[in-house]
């Protein structure tokens, strides 16, 4: 049994059929990179996995949590599936430390001191131990994104979803975020990332998912897929991006 299973997933926006029967299995500790052109449904797929987008048919199972079109216990699902966003989405009215402490205190009912200790540990993990009292606006984009990762990790998720987390960053800040992700991968964190960083996907990914027109068009080991794409669509896509 895989850690995460998606079966026959369908999603519509009105008449627009955006996900057309997705099947996907993710094993514990795997790093899965989802690639594809914009509009291929890759971000939508990622956002269904923690219930930010509802689904119209199919089943999502994560570590015993079960979600379909009719029922979902989003609170327990989201405690197992963390998410990091392209735009960081840190809470601007809270300090870095408070950003990380909030959900453990409110959702997991941790005492303030425990939450603060946890927040310091998570900040150390992303290399920002000294920023506990800073406010998000004082940090660089790369630092903000690392705080966002620390904030997600503080809820001890089983899976971490990363939605184009380096796309809003200046080029010189991309690597510090990717280094953190790489370190998480080496620690055995299960990661599902929508990304445009093809080189990173090839080096760190265990599994590559190429989406095209709302379907999983090709899936396999990244090195194999990049070296020998089986379909014309993937070949074209690889040709159109810089590696």
């Amino acid at each position: 049994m895989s850690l995460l299973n998606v079966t026959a997933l369908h999603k519509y926006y009105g008449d627009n059929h955006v996900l057309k029967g997705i099947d996907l299995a993710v094993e514990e500790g795997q790093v899965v990179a989802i690639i594809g052109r914009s509009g291929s449904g890759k971000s939508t797929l990622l956002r269904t996995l923690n219930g930010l987008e509802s689904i119209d048919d199919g089943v999502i199972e994560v570590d015993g949590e079960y979600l379909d079109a009719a029922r979902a216990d989003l609170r327990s699902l989201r405690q197992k599936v963390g998410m990091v966003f392209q735009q960081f989405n840190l809470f601007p009215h809270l300090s870095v430390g408070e950003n990380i402490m909030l959900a453990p205190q409110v959702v997991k009912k941790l005492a303030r001191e425990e939450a603060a200790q946890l927040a310091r540990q998570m900040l150390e993990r992303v290399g920002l131990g000294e920023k506990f009292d800073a406010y998000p606006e004082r940090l660089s984009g790369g630092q903000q994104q690392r705080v966002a990762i620390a904030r997600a990790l503080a809820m001890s998720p089983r899976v971490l979803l990363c939605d184009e987390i380096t796309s809003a960053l200046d080029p010189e800040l991309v690597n510090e975020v990717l280094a953190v992700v790489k370190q998480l991968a080496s620690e055995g964190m299960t990661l599902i990332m929508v990304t445009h960083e093809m080189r990173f996907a090839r080096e760190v990914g265990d599994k590559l998912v190429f989406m095209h027109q709302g379907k999983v068009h090709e899936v396999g080991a990244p090195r194999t897929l990049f070296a020998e794409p089986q379909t014309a669509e993937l070949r074209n896509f690889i040709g159109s991006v810089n590696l």
Partner: protein
Amino acid sequence: MDFSFWDILRNLLVGLQWTLLLSLVAFVCGGIAGLLLLLARIAPLPAARALARGYIELFQGTPLLMQLFLVFFGIALLGVDVSPWLAAASALTLFTSAFLAEIWRGCVEAIPRGQWEAAQSLAMSRLELLRHVVLPQALRIAVAPTVGFSVQVVKGTAVTSIIGFSELTKTGGMLANATFEPFMVYGLVALGYFLLCYPLSLAAHRLERRLNVTA
């Protein structure tokens, strides 16, 4: 009976106190009711949203004077004798709550979608994310327009003179009739409102500037 200038001033000051008290009551009660109305207005339940929206549009779409009459004479129809003070406070509370709820809804909607999604992704419930993430940020941008609207409440209290509540305008009317000096009396009445409202306007402008600079 003769009125000296000081008699007039003393009486107007008593009226001014009632205007101030009525404004405060309307603003505080209207604020509390407005907050509940806001929660209904942005609730996930469509029926709650529709109800709150109907309420807001009703009170924004009718003159305050009519609302006052309806409360004053409507409650009397039920056989309950309602004092002008109670009718005035109730009508102004209803009026204030509708406007504040709508002002605050705009502030809540100004908070970027990503803030909601980040809080949801951290498994926070709707109430938790409103309480800890959305409302604290909305509050910052709400301060200036809320203080600005309080000026409307203060000026709105003047219509309660119609149902015989002795606030500043009503007191002025009685004094004008007794002294035959309407221009002087109403001039003082206007000055009274200005003294209440100007500091509020000034505060609203300052807050707006300050919060815009830091935002």
